[in-house]
């Protein structure tokens, strides 16, 4: 029962994160936040099955996913910072040149 509830919650977070990526045309930071939400949904999924099967591999993999998510958040923010330095805007509809 608790497994089903956590899986329901994690799929809801996944779909919400996907919706946020496609619908929020405001700025790049909200897209990065939605990616963090999706990664949180995946971690919830891993931990749920680790709890159900009494297997520790799920928690180990969730830990590594957390490491990689932190690394890509840092690099994504560095890219946002230098893009803002060069172009002066992070409104997503204006970022349409590949040369930027």
């Amino acid at each position, binding site marked *: 029962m*608790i497994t*089903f*509830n*956590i*899986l*329901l*919650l994690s*799929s*809801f*977070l*996944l*779909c*919400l994160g*996907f*919706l*946020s990526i*496609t*619908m929020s*045309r*405001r*700025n790049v*930071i909200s897209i*990065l*936040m*939605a990616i*963090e*939400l999706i990664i*949180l949904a995946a*971690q*919830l999924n891993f*931990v*749920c099955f*680790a709890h159900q*099967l*009494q*297997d*520790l*591999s799920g*928690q*180990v993999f969730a*830990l*590594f996913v*957390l*490491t990689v*998510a*932190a*690394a890509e958040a*840092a*690099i994504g*923010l*560095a*890219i*946002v*910072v*230098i893009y*803002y330095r060069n172009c002066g*805007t*992070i*409104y997503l*509809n204006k970022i349409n040149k590949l040369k930027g």
Partner: protein
Amino acid sequence: MFYIFSFVLAISAVLVVFSQNPVNSLLFLILAFFNAAGIFLIAGAEFLAMILIIIYVGAVVVLFLFVVMMLNFDMQLLRQELKPYQFISTLISAVVFSEMIFIFYFSKRGEFAKAYISYQDSLSNTHNLGNVLYTHYAYIFQISGLILLVAMVASITLTLQFKHNHKRQHLSNQLQRSPKNSLELVDIKTQDGMGKEETLQ
């Protein structure tokens, strides 16, 4: 108890998406992470819950906040959201969500295979994770350390700027100075001073 955590998590995730201010959405993201850590505690992953709070909330979201405060957000422009993909993305996410719920609801809950290598003893969760992480998953552990190193080097390389009007230390110039170039010993009598023609230039 679990229902409180999941309800607040769902609501704060919705508010992350639909909040106008970027700082507000980051604060709701912090709330979502705290509730997710609570759910992790209920599911028995104590180490992962604390690591989530320390690393994710304490470092990554703080980094997000720094960047949000550093960049000037034009709030007038941000309110006019153009949503060209509203219908199709809602449709796709609703379909995916319902598919997953269908799978979870109608799956067999019978016998499962034996757990992969590790199992949970009467020791604490951190102890068990330490037992597994440094023996079976040692290579992956080292590689994740390398990933963090690469991320650090990449962030510094991307954002470091050398400005020309900053005073910097030039180590080779400093080491090449010898007493011959820079010092000059002058014999001065007391109450006599250097004298006007011998002042330093």
